[in-house]
């Protein structure tokens, strides 16, 4: 393994270029205007010659064999305004183009402000396909972890990974994959480690109370995952790394009439064995076992046109098996998880009107024939779910008015108590309106959202609202007031009572009755340096936050506690296009404290909610080389509802070096990714050991030109 790593490292470092000199070439890079983020899958055409190519993950393209003379170049990509120019090509020379694409405001159906720079207050933190590839992310959890205010909760390198936003529980964050909920119907939590990064086109993280738009479980934030669809050039990738990690994936795409089809498959396995000290109080070295993981999946997608609109159909199947090794001091060597999930969705959009129907079937089994504590278990959960959503909006003067409806039908067979409803129907109706006003030569955008939901378990109705005022200008300022709710999960209420676990059918939903949020963002250019920054502060009470607690007689049970939620998210980016350098940093303060009037402990941070977190990173690209260094800080946590057992904060660093190679119509990318590069072993949850430094090498080959039906002979 070590020898092969060395060989690949050497191959990255070799300065020689495989690209041969060629007559007449148009090459360049396509990036997002304002942020300079590379754009993948932008179509670059020489329309008069009938040539069309797509950019790669670094936003690069090359069209070879171009005749001498002036040619028109046209660039397009969904979600961005088109761009064209004339370029003069000389024999034996390459004409280089640096192409900025501005975001197309038409895709934002609920806002009317025109901007060329993503506004994190309004649009959330957006991670594009190019950024995902450049980051070396393995799963959706790695992608989401880069958003300010987000804490990814994990129990070891191969365990499930759930997301907490602004100090929430994992079941108060709604995760939508192509519009369909990823949250487990029993636990309410979304395991982002089950979504491979290779399948993702774009991720958007919207912190804050968003039930008024997205419904139940969006009490602390929403994560929107858009999977890849459409025409994708053939590509294959293999990876290998420490902990016995090996992975392979392939994808293929082709035009099909006016549509495009795409298919892909992936597999990944990790042995997960490493040595660690049994406990901070016991330096005995032991080996982590039962920490292996295997996952595989396949998908197919079709993107085309129907009834004057854009149609996307997608289906996929995933399987996962992993060991559940337990804590380091009291491991569970026999506990296992198996999961199989099938998904299908059909989405249609025409202008502001859209409709989505999605379905999912899932089978999850958890078993431990010999647990270190408690009784042996072998539980299987089967879920069938259908979700439908439709919305549209219409313009009036400078504003828009929209309406939408969604519905969910779900059937669960699980190890729940007899009180648990097996079949449930829920849904909601929502409306939103936005308008603009000019006051004191400033443009103010106002938006209002309201929603009513019926909870499928309790049958209760819940109302949510959001009011937002935004002032545009060199510094955009936004003030929002929202309410939200997040119902208890089926598991929290009705799990089958057993040793050490007590159900709580009386659990109430988490309510955020009144969240205030104010933020400001700006973007500017100083010389050749593009700068952007934003800051958001929030303040809300959480009524009945659902927290698992140990009760009398050594039994665990979920309970409702009141809490204050106050904090601040900061982020700053600087792009130096001339140097190919981009630096960024974020910091989050999250004061999530118990609200116990009259008690001495009012103000104690809620368990496992780090008050401080953040990261700083730098990305550099020059020619075929790319490099990134990033350090992430997870602040001190209270493992218990007191400040007497504080777990100190820790840093984790990540390094990534990549090089691209050109071989005719093929592009070869090699990347070395080192996580916890300084061998940091800090872990979020006490008792779950981390292996320290992990390395992985990715080798990817991708065709840069798609077969075209009217290519020149």
């Amino acid at each position: 393994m070590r020898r092969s790593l060395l060989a690949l490292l050497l191959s990255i470092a070799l300065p020689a270029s495989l690209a041969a000199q060629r007559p007449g070439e148009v090459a360049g890079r396509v990036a997002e205007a304002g942020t300079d983020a590379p754009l993948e899958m932008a179509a670059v055409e020489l329309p008069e010659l009938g040539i069309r190519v797509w950019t790669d993950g670094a936003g690069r393209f090359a069209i070879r064999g171009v005749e001498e003379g002036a040619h028109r170049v046209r660039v397009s990509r969904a979600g961005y305004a088109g761009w064209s120019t004339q370029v003069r090509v000389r024999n034996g020379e390459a004409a280089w183009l640096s192409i900025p694409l501005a975001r197309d405001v038409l895709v934002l159906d609920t806002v009317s402000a025109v901007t060329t720079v993503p506004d994190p207050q309004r649009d959330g933190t957006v991670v594009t396909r190019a950024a995902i590839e450049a980051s070396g992310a393995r799963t959706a959890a790695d992608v989401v972890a880069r958003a300010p205010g987000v804490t990814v909760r994990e129990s070891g390198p191969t365990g499930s990974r759930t997301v907490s936003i602004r100090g929430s529980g994992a079941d108060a964050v709604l995760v939508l994959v192509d519009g369909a909920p990823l949250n487990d119907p029993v636990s309410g939590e979304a395991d982002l480690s089950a979504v491979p990064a290779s399948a993702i086109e774009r991720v958007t993280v919207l912190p804050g109370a968003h039930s008024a738009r997205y419904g139940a479980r969006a009490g602390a934030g929403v994560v929107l995952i858009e999977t890849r669809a459409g025409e994708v050039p053939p590509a294959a990738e293999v990876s290998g790394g420490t902990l016995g990690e090996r992975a392979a994936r392939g994808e293929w795409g082709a035009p099909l009439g006016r549509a495009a089809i795409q298919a892909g498959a992936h597999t990944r396995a990790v042995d997960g064995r490493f040595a660690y000290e049994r406990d901070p109080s016991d330096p005995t070295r032991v080996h982590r076992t039962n920490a292996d993981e295997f996952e595989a999946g396949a998908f197919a997608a079709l993107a085309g046109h129907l009834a004057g609109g854009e149609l996307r159909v997608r289906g996929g199947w995933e399987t996962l098996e992993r060991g559940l090794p337990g804590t380091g001091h009291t491991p569970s060597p026999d506990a296992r998880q198996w999961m199989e999930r099938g998904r299908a969705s059909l989405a249609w959009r025409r202008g502001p009107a859209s409709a989505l129907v999605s379905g999912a079937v899932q089978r999850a089994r958890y078993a431990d024939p010999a647990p270190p504590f408690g009784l042996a278990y072998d539980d299987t959960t089967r879920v069938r779910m259908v979700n439908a959503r439709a919305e549209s909006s219409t313009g009036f003067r400078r504003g828009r008015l929209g309406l939408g409806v969604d519905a969910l039908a779900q059937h669960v067979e699980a190890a729940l108590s007899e009180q648990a409803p097996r079949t449930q129907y829920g849904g909601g109706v929502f409306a939103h309106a936005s308008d603009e006003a000019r006051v004191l030569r400033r443009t103010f955008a106002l938006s209002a959202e309201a929603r009513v939901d019926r909870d499928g378990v309790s049958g209760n109705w819940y109302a949510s609202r959001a009011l937002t005022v935004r002032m545009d200008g060199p510094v955009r300022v936004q003030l929002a007031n929202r309410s939200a709710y997040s119902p208890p999960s089926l598991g929290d209420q009705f799990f089958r009572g057993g040793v050490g676990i007590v159900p709580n059918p009386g659990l109430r939903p988490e309510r955020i009755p009144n969240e205030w949020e104010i933020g400001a963002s700006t973007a500017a250019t100083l010389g050749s340096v593009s700068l952007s920054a934003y800051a958001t502060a929030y303040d809300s009470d959480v009524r009945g936050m659902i927290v698992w607690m140990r009760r009398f007689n050594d039994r665990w049970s979920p309970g409702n506690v009141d809490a204050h939620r106050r904090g601040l998210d900061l982020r700053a980016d600087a792009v130096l296009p001339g140097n190919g350098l981009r630096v960024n940093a974020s910091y989050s303060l999250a004061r999530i404290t118990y609200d116990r009037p009259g008690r001495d402990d009012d103000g104690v941070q809620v368990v496992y909610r780090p008050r401080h977190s953040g990261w700083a990173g730098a990305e550099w690209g020059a020619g075929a080389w790319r490099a990134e260094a990033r350090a992430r800080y997870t602040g001190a946590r209270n493992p218990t509802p007191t400040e007497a057992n504080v777990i100190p904060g820790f840093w984790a660093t990540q390094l990534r070096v990549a090089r691209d190679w050109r071989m005719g119509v093929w592009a070869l990318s090699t990347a070395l990714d080192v996580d916890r590069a300084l061998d940091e072993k800090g872990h979020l949850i006490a008792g779950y050991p981390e292996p320290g430094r992990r390395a992985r090498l990715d080798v990817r080959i991708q065709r840069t030109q798609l077969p075209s039906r009217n290519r020149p002979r």
Partner: protein
Amino acid sequence: MMTTRLIRRLAGMAALAALSLSAACERNPALSAGDHLAAVVVNSVDNTLSIVPLEEGGTARTVGLAQAASSPVDLAVRGNVAVVPLGVYPFAAVVDLAAGVVSYRVSLPANSGATGVAFVNDSVALVANPGRNTVSPVNVRRGQAGAEIAVGVYPQAIVAGNGATFVINSNLVNFAPAGPGSVTVLNPALGVQKTIPLSGVNPAAGAVLGDRLYVLHSGNFGQANGSLSVVNLQTLAEESHHTGFGVFPTSLEALGNPSVLYVGGFGYGIAAWNPATRQFLVPPATALKPNGIADVGDMTVDDEGQLFFTAPGNCTQPGNLYLVGSSGAIAGQATVGVCPLGVELARIKS
């Protein structure tokens, strides 16, 4: 009327004084100037010890026991040292009460489930490993555990007295009573002297009073089959078994003079039993609930016969340590951590 009579009986035998916690120290003239009487409370959800001074001007302290998920429910105190088994976290915390810090976290065998504890001498405390049907001697001066000693099935409480150590074996299999419990008697050299079969189900606590060992049986969860065994320490045999101890009592505390056994539990209140007459002074059906508080985590009495108890509440918010006054009402209280389940008194030398 009945309540008033019961309260008077309880108050008379316990000789409780209506003093607040902060005033209690004034009535302990045996304490030297450097001594401080404190209640030491183990808070199970917090994983902390609360050290509550029982004298004016003292400042309560909180000592964190562990960062990892633990489940401490019991403690033993001798001098300035407290030992707290950490339950599902297989370690025992040795706490320096004067400094208010954990001196050692002593590693116990995997899957220990460390629960009961008692001091054998000034250096060694015995910790029960119910997950392994053993006990481990813990040297509090060195911070090390010795070789395990095999005892009965599911030991979860340990009592020391009369020159011997008594390990109370609950006989739980898969956390449910598999039959009557037993007591393993260890000699001063920690050798197994005898195993005494008991008649009750799910023995959970014990106390030595005179030449008798009293063992409280919780019974089955949710059933009213709590009971009490009386073990003759001369013959090392169960002398009698008494039923009628209600629904799941968990705590037993003995007062020497006059002799009385206090019995408590979650939702149970405080009952009183006279070991001399072997009759209830306050039966479980009319157990004392000071100021309406029925949730009793643990109890202890001081040299003056004052009764203290912890009230865990619903274990989601900080609980309380209470002093019961002679009227049967709360005479003093202090807020402690979340889910206080164990309490002992300590004379802490500064």
